[in-house]
């Protein structure tokens, strides 16, 4: 459960990640070609219509928090992680192992979010104002206690986001493995329907959406140059 190998043969969850990334890249490159061939007065049909309407909903959701140049800079990254997480959490329905049930993949998401938030801090607020926020804050005479608390709070938010994903997915994988080992193959199909609907579809999609919303809100707070 807790193995991630850097050198040596790849763990099954990393192989799942590579398969998901290549399938999604191929799908969206084909959709992009079809969208770029539309003229401005055509209506899209079929699968392009589904993707375009989904994209419009997400862009309106992001546009409430980020405007203008920030939307162009951070919008594609947020849409990408939403689609990747929604696919990666439900890929257990197709027989592969869920990528996020490996501690290394969840930690990778935490590190990416940590670097993104600190980059947005330094770009939109500058070093002086950031240090002022950490050290002085709102009540200036409590700074011996507030400095460690603020510093830990900077790191702990992305780490919590990654561990939330990891915990949900690994509990689903462990309970599925235990139930499948206890039943024979015929009863396993009936039990598998309930298990996969609850753990993969319901929890997986909701946790992906929660990760996306938390990234969006933290990013808009960090990039708020007021």
């Amino acid at each position, binding site marked *: *459960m*807790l193995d991630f190998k850097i050198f040596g043969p790849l763990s099954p969850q990393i192989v799942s990640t590579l398969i998901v990334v290549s399938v999604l890249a191929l799908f969206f490159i084909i959709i992009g070609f079809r969208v770029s061939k539309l003229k401005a007065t055509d209506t899209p049909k079929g699968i392009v219509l589904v993707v375009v309407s989904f994209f419009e909903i997400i862009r309106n959701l992001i546009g409430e928090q980020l405007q203008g140049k920030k939307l162009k800079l951070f919008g594609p990254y947020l849409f990408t992680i939403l689609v990747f997480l929604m696919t990666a959490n439900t890929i257990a329905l197709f027989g592969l192992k869920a990528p996020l049930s490996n501690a290394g993949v969840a930690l990778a998401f935490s590190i990416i979010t940590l670097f993104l938030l600190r980059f947005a801090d330094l770009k939109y607020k500058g070093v002086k104002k950031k240090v002022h926020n950490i050290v002085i804050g709102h009540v200036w005479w409590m700074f011996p206690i507030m400095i460690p608390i603020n510093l830990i709070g900077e790191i702990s938010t992305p780490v*919590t986001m990654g*561990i*939330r994903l*990891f*915990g*949900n997915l*690994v*509990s689903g994988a*462990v309970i599925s493995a235990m139930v499948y080992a206890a039943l024979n193959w015929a009863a396993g199909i009936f039990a598998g329907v309930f298990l996969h609907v609850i753990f993969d579809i319901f*929890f997986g999609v*909701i*946790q992906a*959406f*929660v990760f996306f*919303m*938390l990234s969006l809100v933290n990013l808009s707070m960090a990039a708020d140059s007021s």
Partner: protein
Amino acid sequence: MFDTIFAAILRFATEYNEFFSNGMRYLGAGIAVVAGIGPGIGQGYAAGKAAEAVGRQPEAQGKIIMTTMVTAALAETTGLYGLLVALILIFG
């Protein structure tokens, strides 16, 4: 009274072997899941407030349900920490 406590500690120190440590691991894993009380109370409170809001304004039911799901999933994190500790104790 201190005699019995010393006798218990001496007996624990002489009888410490692998079966005892495995048993204590499983006992700790069971106690760790008691942390599930927190999300139970918190998410139940959130669901109650959501039902009250739907009763007050039935047209906004879709948005209220979506907001309830997202905030309940947020409050579930600390219960998951307890489950993670229990899984690490049992399987590794």
